């Protein structure tokens, strides 16, 4: 990389804010999807939006691509550096700037972690709702890029439902404000499309997030079942009874064993456990929780444990949230997938996964958000065995195909990133991808903001929309003219 350019970057961020040493760059080679790696030419660590603007303007002048990075917990290679490009790390922009409890809003910088917001407002009886499993370490900027969900999004929605406004640096270096402190802002809802755009449209430098008041009552049930199918029936029965729980999570035997080995949540030794949580006003939760208990019993629950207090509830959730990391206890390596299927197709898709497990010879653990059909199959492999990592990747890809065939999606919350961009063409047609890339062209005509992610092939933004040919609709018999 051009030395003069690096000097200019160094001047923007001041001492310690520019990383070019090979050994220091190692940290930034990948996000949490560690098998995809690339070395950036440099990493810059700005502290202000003005610095981000200056960096982006320098990149634009020099034609250098850039990748924004939060805390590197992404699971789809969304923050993978690009060739001849730089990484803009936002970890130093980590202040909570304002908390407005009466209006239930907080203004934060992108490097603030998800859980920090909740901790900060907990004394006021408030919390920030999206709760991805990585919430202790993942950043709000990253959550916005990925539209992160979590276990409680069945009732409370995703990041997009909890971010009211952002300040962002566009790929030309201009600062823009999308959304705002109030619920409706004039004009197009560009915030709605920015959230979940995986860092390909702009770099968020400030966000106004919505806070919620803690519900009066939270009731959590851990139920063991002798089969995944029986647990699935219980979920169907709950939904059919008009109950929308705050969370419904399911784990199979392999992930139960792994979690037990790692964090000892004292889960029953069964083929499946279901965690069902209801929250809200006490009068409502108490009445509906009784219904949930009897439905689980009716579906053959072999064990039932109701959390009596916060400690017990935290123990149950610890078992669930540790499931990914715990796989390390039962397998040297594992590959996480994130496909989604319509909830009613869960039994069918899980059966196909079990058949695939038998055929492939690789163990597959299943831990998933049963309420919304978001699967997280964990494919166990040993990278020391030649070819097994590639085999695991193929198996993961086959599971995505099952999800698409069942009418689902290739990613529920981890993002497409680099990991799944080739599968986009299985889920969407050329015209669908073209329409999406029109948004990209409006935000980033030069294609320098996290290039190569999300889309299988980039669209050339310089294309003039084709010459319109007269196409009389009457001729086609599709419409009539009066």
């Amino acid at each position, binding site marked *: 990389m051009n030395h003069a350019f690096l000097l200019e970057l160094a001047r923007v961020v001041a001492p310690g804010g520019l990383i070019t040493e090979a050994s220091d760059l190692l940290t930034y080679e990948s996000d949490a999807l560690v098998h995809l790696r690339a070395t950036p030419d440099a990493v810059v660590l700005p502290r202000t939006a003005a610095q981000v603007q200056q960096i982006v303007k320098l990149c634009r002048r020099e034609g250098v691509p850039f990748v924004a990075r939060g805390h590197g917990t992404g699971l789809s290679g969304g923050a993978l550096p690009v060739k001849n490009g730089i990484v803009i790390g936002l970890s130093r922009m980590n202040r909570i700037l304002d908390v407005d409890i009466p209006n239930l809003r907080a203004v934060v910088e992108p490097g603030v972690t998800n859980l920090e917001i909740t901790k900060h407002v907990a004394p006021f009886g408030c919390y920030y709702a999206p709760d991805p499993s990585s919430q202790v370490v993942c950043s709000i900027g990253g959550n916005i890029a990925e539209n992160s969900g979590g276990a409680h999004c069945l009732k409370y929605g995703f990041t997009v439902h909890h971010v009211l406004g952002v300040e962002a640096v566009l790929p030309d270096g201009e600062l823009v404000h999308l959304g705002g402190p109030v619920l*409706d*802002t004039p004009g197009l*809802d560009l915030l709605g499309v920015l959230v979940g755009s995986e860092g390909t449209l702009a770099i968020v430098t400030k966000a106004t997030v919505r806070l919620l008041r803690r519900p009066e009552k939270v009731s959590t049930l851990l139920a063991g079942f002798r089969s995944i199918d029986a647990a699935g029936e219980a979920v169907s029965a709950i939904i059919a009874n008009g109950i929308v729980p705050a969370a419904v999570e399911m784990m199979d035997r392999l992930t139960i064993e792994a979690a037990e080995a790692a964090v000892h949540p004292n889960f029953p030794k069964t083929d499946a456990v279901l965690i069902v949580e209801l929250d809200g006003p006490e009068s409502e939760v108490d009445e509906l929780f009784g219904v949930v208990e009897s439905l689980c019993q009716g579906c053959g629950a072999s064990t039932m444990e109701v959390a009596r207090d916060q400690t017990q509830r935290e123990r149950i959730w610890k078992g669930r949230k540790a499931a990914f990391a715990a796989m390390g206890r039962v397998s040297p390596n594992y590959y996480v997938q994130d496909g989604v299927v319509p*909830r009613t197709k869960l039994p069918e898709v899980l059966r196909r996964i079990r058949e695939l497990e038998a055929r492939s010879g690789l163990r597959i653990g299943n831990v998933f958000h049963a309420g919304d059909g978001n699967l997280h199959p964990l494919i166990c492999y040993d990278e020391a065995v030649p070819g097994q990592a590639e085999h695991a990747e193929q198996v993961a890809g086959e599971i995505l195909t099952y999800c698409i065939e069942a009418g689902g999606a290739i990613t529920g919350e981890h993002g497409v990133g680099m990991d799944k961009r080739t599968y986009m063409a299985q889920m969407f047609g050329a015209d669908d991808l073209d329409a999406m890339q029109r948004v990209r062209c409006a935000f980033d005509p030069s294609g320098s903001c996290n290039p190569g992610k999300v889309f299988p092939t980039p669209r050339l933004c310089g294309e003039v929309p084709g010459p319109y040919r007269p*196409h009389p609709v009457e001729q086609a018999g599709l419409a*009539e003219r009066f």
Partner: protein
Amino acid sequence: MSVVEPRDAAGVAAALQSAAAQNLAVIVRGGGTKSAERSSAAVLLSTTRLTEGIDHVAGDLVATVPAGATLAAVNSVLCRAGQWLPLDPPRSNRATIGGIIATNDSGPRRHRFGTPRDLIIGIEIALVNGRTAKAGGRVVKNVAGYDLSKLLCGSLGSLAVVTSATFKLSPVAPYSQTLVATVSDIRELGLLARAIAELPVAPTAIELQSPPHHLLIRFETTEQAAARQSERVRAVCIERGATCTILSGQPEADAWHAHESGVFGSEGTIVKLAALPTDVAGILDRIGTIVTERREVHAIIGRAALGIVLLRLGGTLDAQAAIVSDLRREVSERGGSAVLSSAPPQLLQDIGRWGPATDAVPLMRAVKQQFDPLNTLNPGVGAWEP
């Protein structure tokens, strides 16, 4: 003006392409509950024939619905399985799904369920290049690709024509009741709403209404839970000097119908204010002064705890323009807005639909340019227009 009524998405795309090729403007129309037809339009594209195929998967709590179907028609199908699309915009027996998406319209129960933007999970659109495209899907949780469905919500038909959409649904609650609190001072509506919002209750609506000064708090849950929560709210209302009535059944339905009619039941300019929830009391105070001084504000309703207030104005256009400009000054200082949801063309021309331009306007213009480079679709509605 010519009228086209395509029967399917391909027909819509073909009509758009044809109009664009002839450089004709297209006005898109659903149930006609909101759009003001403009004389410059050369083609009126009606979506009312796009009504086939409501696909409800009750076990997944989702439904895919055609853009031309009315909300009432959709919900009459969904309720057979005890579910509904939890939106209650005005005139829902005539308002179409496409129109509701284009305006991101909602009603009192936005308090609990949000707007179309919060419920939409997939979309199919027809573009002016003659193509159709989809985004999202039929599963609630899905981050594959850009979420065009949210971009289309509230875009006023300026980017593409929605031909069908998929929504997440809610179960229909077994019971509903509404507590009507009457207060003597308009400002108290905002203050009382805030006090209620801090209680550990989960109403589906906290709605202000004036005149007379009413706050309507609705509970939709089990009968027992509704009764207990109403009681907690009633205690706070009484403490603050309000008088309370609890309604259920037909009287409750009638009260909500009358509530909507206050603003939407007759002709007039409709202004939507968006403000911080803590600013609602002050804004109501300001409006109260206007009402006392002059008579142009005919009715006020709003999502009291969310910071959304809707006004119906009458009187001369000059007087209306003065009121809206005054309110815009007041709310914009605190990040809020005053948008003309519905207004005579002359008023729109005089003071603009949206209010002061923001730094996002150039980006909005760029998005419009990408989707509709010849400005074929609903010209004149965008915040990017001069």
